[in-house]
């Protein structure tokens, strides 16, 4: 089909911290140097920030560079970190506080802010538009476009107005081709275009498989006397240790009596009966969290996978015609559990490299290998290098010994131990067959502190146009019931935090896999953890998905 096309100098896919910072920096450089430069940002959410979800403790280092006067410009950094507490939960009621002395240096948060990353991205989006960036919310990039030499020449947006069978409805509008000299891919963790680019250009040939966690988060409004703005609590141990899973929980007190509580569960877990959602719901019953949440009201819920493999899993980020930035590549600093400032810096570095290149040579489709050099020389690389062994140590040595290793590595040796631990096994290969795993019976939610999946998804304001093709594509329609169900008890029913996948079985009939695509939170866990790697996440019609408020 012949599609309409639009031309830009640079197209950025994804309106998150990496994409917006890149777009802003490009326009700042253009204005400073009196050069014409057209930049657009494609965002699949209905507005910038709609699909953004993070804790978040924000380190302002990259923002200081991008907008030195961010405070005067009213950037939404309202709550500085006041106190920082780390606990080891040894049981459902017990907690041991880890003295500051024993906390790895990377987890100290002085000078940082508790923010809503969604609100920060909205603010960045406004700044981008003010600088002349064209921001297009509600338009997912569906596929990458290549020229005859196989170089990236842009992207094509998703078709709008197809029915469930894929046939055009009355209001059908075909996707538009966006052509650019350079395309920056900033879709976040496990971006579907990033995944295809990594495959096509073999970008991960020399690195370990990427490693992921699933973060599930809620915002609560609590009574005034339970609210301590600036309080930061991190914990590990219970409940995840019961299921032999790794990860940790967080609780941050924001402004306006809002408390953020969540848990990141490492997706390398082995037990197919594990349900990240239920593990999180249980966590809130622990007195450490319950004392702050009791009497409060849950106002928001969301989930998103995070890329935590660090340097060892960071693929080559440059290829002909484009760059991979932010969590799409995997720039998150897992030892700090912070990825926003690193994503922003990777976007800003990309902008500098792209600007220099386009100024000297406006030819499209160049392979900007200089990005790798600039990356190597930046504080971003230094930071990621310092903490490179934290993730693999935790995977190899478990929570306690891994943490001890991390303390030694980061506090005593400042990350300069001369070896680099590797962690090659991909997360989806780690599941044990169901018959070798212990069943887990999760307690029923009490409706006060813990809740069921569907009322949780309700709070994410998720919606998708009902009459559209299912965006969760199965490479083989047979595999879920013929392989995943008998061997792994179809774990999608449990690892999906939105209840998208259900295996239904009527009396005397064959089981059927039902995909409730409308619930999808776009977290990407199914694409990551399916043991058969049979699920391919593709973007649904534009504007669909969660509508997170202040997440």
């Amino acid at each position: 089909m012949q599609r309409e096309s639009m031309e830009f100098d640079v197209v950025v896919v994804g309106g998150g911290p990496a994409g917006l910072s890149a777009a802003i920096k490009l326009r700042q450089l253009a204005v400073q140097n009196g050069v014409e430069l057209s930049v657009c940002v494609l965002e699949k959410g209905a507005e910038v920030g709609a699909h953004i979800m993070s804790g978040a403790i924000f380190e302002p280092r990259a923002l200081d560079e991008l907008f030195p006067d961010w405070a005067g410009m009213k950037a939404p950094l309202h709550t500085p970190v006041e106190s920082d507490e780390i606990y080891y939960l040894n049981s459902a009621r017990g907690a041991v506080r880890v003295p500051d002395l024993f906390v790895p240096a990377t987890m100290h948060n002085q000078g940082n802010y508790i923010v809503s990353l969604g609100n920060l991205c909205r603010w960045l989006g406004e700044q981008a538009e003010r600088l002349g960036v064209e921001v297009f919310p509600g338009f997912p990039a569906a596929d990458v476009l290549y020229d005859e030499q196989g170089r990236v020449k842009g992207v094509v947006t998703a078709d709008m107005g197809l029915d469930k069978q894929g046939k055009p409805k009355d209001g059908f509008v075909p996707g538009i081709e966006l052509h650019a000299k350079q395309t920056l891919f900033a879709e976040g963790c496990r971006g579907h275009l990033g995944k295809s680019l990594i495959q096509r250009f073999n970008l991960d040939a020399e690195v370990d498989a990427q490693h992921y966690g699933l973060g599930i988060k809620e915002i609560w409004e609590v009574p005034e006397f339970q609210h301590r703005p600036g309080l930061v609590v991190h914990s590990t141990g219970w409940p995840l240790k019961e299921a032999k899973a790794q990860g940790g929980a967080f609780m941050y007190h924001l402004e306006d009596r809002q408390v953020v509580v969540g848990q990141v569960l490492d997706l390398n877990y082995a037990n197919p009966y594990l349900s990240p959602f239920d593990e999180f719901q249980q966590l809130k019953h622990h007195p450490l969290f319950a004392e702050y949440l009791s009497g409060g009201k849950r106002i928001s819920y969301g989930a998103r996978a995070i890329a935590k493999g660090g340097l060892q899993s960071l693929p080559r980020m440059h290829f002909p015609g484009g760059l991979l930035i932010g969590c799409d590549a995997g720039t998150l600093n897992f030892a700090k559990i912070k990825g926003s400032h690193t994503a922003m810096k990777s976007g800003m570095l990309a902008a500098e490299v792209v600007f220099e290149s386009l100024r000297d040579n406006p030819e499209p489709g160049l392979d900007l290998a200089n990005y790798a050099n600039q990356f190597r020389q930046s504080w971003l690389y230094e930071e990621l290098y310092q903490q490179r062994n934290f993730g693999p140590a935790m995977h190899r040595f478990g929570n306690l010994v891994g943490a001890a290793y991390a303390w030694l590595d980061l506090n005593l040796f400042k990350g300069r131990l001369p070896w680099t631990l590797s962690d090659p096994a991909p997360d989806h290969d780690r599941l044990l067959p169901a018959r070798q795993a212990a069943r887990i019976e999760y307690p029923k939610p009490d409706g006060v502190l813990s809740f069921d999946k569907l009322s949780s998804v309700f709070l994410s304001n998720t919606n998708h146009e009902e009459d559209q093709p299912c965006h969760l594509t199965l490479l083989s329609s047979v595999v879920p019931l013929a392989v995943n169900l008998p061997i792994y008890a179809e774990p999608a029913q449990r690892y999906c935090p939105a209840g998208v996948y259900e295996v239904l079985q009527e009396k005397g009939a064959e089981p059927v896999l039902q995909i409730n695509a409308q619930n999808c939170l776009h977290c990407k866990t199914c694409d990551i953890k399916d043991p058969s790697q049979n699920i391919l996440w593709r973007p649904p019609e534009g504007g669909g998905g969660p509508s997170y408020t202040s997440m």
Partner: protein
Amino acid sequence: MKVVVAVKRVADANVKVRVKSDGTGVELGNVKMAINPFCEIAVEAAVRLKESGKASEVVAVSVGTDASQEQLRTALAMGADRAILVKGADTLEPLAVAKVLKAIVQREAADIVVLGKQSIDGDNNQTGQMLSALLDCAQGAFASSIEVGDGNVTVTREVDGGLETLQLTLPAVLTADLRLNEPRYASLPNIMKAKKKPLDVVAIEELGVDVSPRLTVLKVVEPAERQAGKRVSSVKELVEKLRNEAGVI
């Protein structure tokens, strides 16, 4: 023939809003806003009139703060030719909005005015009707079909008893109901074109209209939690509960 269509910026239909803890209203900070769904249907109807050659120009109007420019750009991207933002508070009552729209409609000398039947935040369902009374012109509310003829418009209205078809002489005020049409998607090229279409900002004071409120909001509360039902095992028990617990007999 000129068509004026009015649009309102409201909280997105998918967002679950909450009442502010002080009971003065709904928490709208950082909430996703969007064009009122019925206003979107109204814009689609106006654009179709132009595409069928019945209308020569479609002008989109909104009354509110600068933020409403976003919704006007949506209307322009759908096919409106021009937009007017009447800049004032975003908490105007239907009567005030109707008075403002009257000033604009008269300024534009419009033949047809289309509005959404109601906004999903206030659900008042008053502005269109009040506007037609102020303009002293014909009114066709809850329109599920619109046919423009020579100097008149035939409107089928969705009413409680079924469907009512009226022929109205122009000028007329119409309000759009759900089944009037399915609004089109705004495509990227149209969004880009819309940025170049004229959007005039008019200060509300210029229109010389009295928009002072006639109502005071006393309090806003969430609907009461649904109580669990009780099963009764006999008529006797039912009567006993109705008398002693519910107190209704």
